[in-house]
């Protein structure tokens, strides 16, 4: 009898896990479809275009048409490829993308499995995806693929560090790695107010982490023609695509949980999910906006930016948080220190690493000088 009860309880547990994972899979797939539509529409509007209009009202059926097309396409296996690695790589990428979502809460208690070490779990799984990208580049036996895969490894590992440093600072503030506790800790003062520097670092490094413009170096179309994805087609390519959008959404969701207060907002408790989604989609829109505006960095500039700016600033964030906690200063001192750090970012970017503003001034001065000389010569 006892064994039977145990079995029944076990079965209910298993059924619950399967059902919730299924719900997560379906929900994330819908989100990805919505994101592809949104990105095409937003980019279209930014670029004097309409975006998709033909499939359904406002082109809303376009992602479904794309999905059907991708699934029906022939899945080509390059003859020189390492077949096992070639097939396993997309699975690694997409599974790690999905696994992150197991512990991301969309509302109070609205989570598949809340983990006490949630942040630790997420940062750990974010690194697993890199393995998939490198394997995809290697397995497809294509030079662009290898180049892209190695770029992905270098880029993602470099930008993992500032993300982890900032996450540690947030965990220190909230005194917990549990995402629910972190969100509740931001009531009534959001972390973005206390630690604006952390938000900036997290968002920029997050862009690099998911390979969005201006950090889309490992799958740059004009150089490595898609990088690790170059030999993939059909459903396997779609899987990479799915993982990329899930990761974009995950970075936006994490930024909103760690800094923007997740589901916190005025109104009744059931509005929490709406607030959460509003914040996430606002951040996603910023990601699309950046994509419509900026060119791409070069790999050396990218690495210099990671190691010379982002990593030191990550350490700075940890130090000011530690000082603030140790001496138990009022919260505004942390804001002040954080803003000071932000101005250091500005200083570093503008003067030391890329020196663009100085360069613009210099170019304009030299051009004016040249013009004056030519006018005198005439």
């Amino acid at each position, binding site marked *: 009898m006892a064994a039977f009860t145990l079995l029944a309880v076990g079965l209910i547990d298993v059924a619950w896990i399967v059902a919730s994972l299924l719900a997560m899979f379906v929900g994330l797939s819908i989100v990805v479809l919505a994101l592809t539509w949104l990105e095409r529409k937003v980019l279209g509007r930014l*670029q004097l275009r309409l975006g998709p209009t033909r499939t359904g009202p406002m082109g809303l059926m376009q992602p479904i048409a794309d999905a059907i097309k991708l699934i029906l396409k022939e899945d080509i296996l390059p003859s020189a490829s390492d077949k096992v690695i070639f097939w396993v790589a997309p699975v690694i990428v997409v599974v790690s993308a999905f696994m992150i979502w197991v512990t991301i809460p969309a509302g109070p208690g609205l989570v598949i499995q809340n983990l006490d070490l949630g942040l630790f779990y997420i940062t750990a799984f974010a690194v697993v995806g890199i393995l998939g990208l490198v394997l995809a580049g290697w397995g497809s036996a294509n*030079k662009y693929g290898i180049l892209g895969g190695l770029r992905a490894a270098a880029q993602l590992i470099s930008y993992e560090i500032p993300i982890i440093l900032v996450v540690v600072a947030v965990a220190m503030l909230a005194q917990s790695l549990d995402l629910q506790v972190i969100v509740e800790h931001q009531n009534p003062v959001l972390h973005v107010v206390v630690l604006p520097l952390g938000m900036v670092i997290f968002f920029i490094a997050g862009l690099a982490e998911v390979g969005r413009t201006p950090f889309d170096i490992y799958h740059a179309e004009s150089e490595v023609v898609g990088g690790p994805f170059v030999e993939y087609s059909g459903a396997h390519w779609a899987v990479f695509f799915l993982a990329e959008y899930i990761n974009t959404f995950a970075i936006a969701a994490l930024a909103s949980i760690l800094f923007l207060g997740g589901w916190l907002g005025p109104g009744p408790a059931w509005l929490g999910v709406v607030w959460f989604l509003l914040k996430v989609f606002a951040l996603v829109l910023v990601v699309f906006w950046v994509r419509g505006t900026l060119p791409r960095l070069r790999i050396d500039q990218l690495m210099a930016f990671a190691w010379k700016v982002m990593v030191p600033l990550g350490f700075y964030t940890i130090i000011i948080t530690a000082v603030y906690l140790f001496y138990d200063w009022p919260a505004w001192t942390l804001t002040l220190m954080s803003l000071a750090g932000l101005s250091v970012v500005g200083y570093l970017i503008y003067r030391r690493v890329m020196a663009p503003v100085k360069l613009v001034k210099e*170019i304009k001065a030299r051009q004016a000088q040249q013009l004056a000389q030519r006018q005198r010569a005439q």
Partner: protein
Amino acid sequence: MTESSPEMTTGAQPIELLLNMGPQHPSTHGVFRMVLWIDGEKIVDMEPHIGYLHRGSEKICEGEQYHQIITLFDRLDYVANFNNELVYCRAVEQLMGLEVPERAEYIRVILCELNRIASHLLYVGTIGLDAGAMTPTMFSFRGRERVQALFEAVSGARMMHNYFRIGGLKEDLPDNFQQMIQELLPLLKVDIEESDQILTFNEIFLSRTKGVGAITTEEAIDYGLTGPCLRGCGLEYDVRKAQPYSVYDRFDFDVPVGLDGDCWDRHWVRIQEMYQSMRIIEQALEQMPEGPVVSSLGRRLIRPPEGEVYVRAENPRGEIGVYLVSKGVDRPYRLKVRPPSFCNLSALKLMLRNAWVADSVVILGSLDIVLGEVDR
């Protein structure tokens, strides 16, 4: 495999990776192929391969009548068709000593300058894509589409116009041309300004192009660079000023020059040239007289006297030269084109010194080659 030829394997060390870019690479601007030896992300050596678009145009010219050759020139530099037609027509006219009606000259200049703007707008779009920015393409193509709509109204075709004739033009402008171009110019100016503003002084674009692919003025002259690639080095050389042809000596315009001869300077020169072309068009529209558009001689079967002539002109990409030998019959004996893209491309290897893989794409984009002209 051509890779096994001895001169191509000598540069390679075991540590290097041989990367074949093109002819089916999205950013080699057509069917150009470059074989790169890379060490990590740095370019060690490079071997260009051209000829994938070779159609034997120069040889075909020897078998065609003079009027028919105009269509072949349309297909050399297929983004600057009017400029190509102009240089060929001028070569034959010079050989025959033909006077072109004043009005035809002005219409030619207006169309050529519009074509220069359209060509440079295409360049802005492609350099944006090469550097990873999608939006400038859309901004600049809007302007290019507007220009091409005007071309279609004038010549009947968006690209392969076949509108210039030896001794003038095929026919006069459409009746509403003045109205169309007055509507076009302000819009075009906005398009140029927008594609300029989103890219030229963008910090990331600057860091990707300033100081990248730089060559000195001496090297540029040695390699026969012309057009924006030469002016980017700081040398003020423009055929429209140095040896004015058509009616270019009647207009007031500047020749923008760069500072260091790098990718950004070449970009900046092209952007400024578009503003100068706008100035030329405005002046030409004011000065344009009425009258016939084709000399009566031009309508007949062309038989230039025996002789040879070399004519040059400033194309959007640089100096185009046409060497024409006539034996007094209705077909040329020999016709040789000096294409600007081909000469500019020859300096690519020089520019790729110490470059990164990502730079190779930007440098090639800043040269703004058209493979139809390189391969002929």
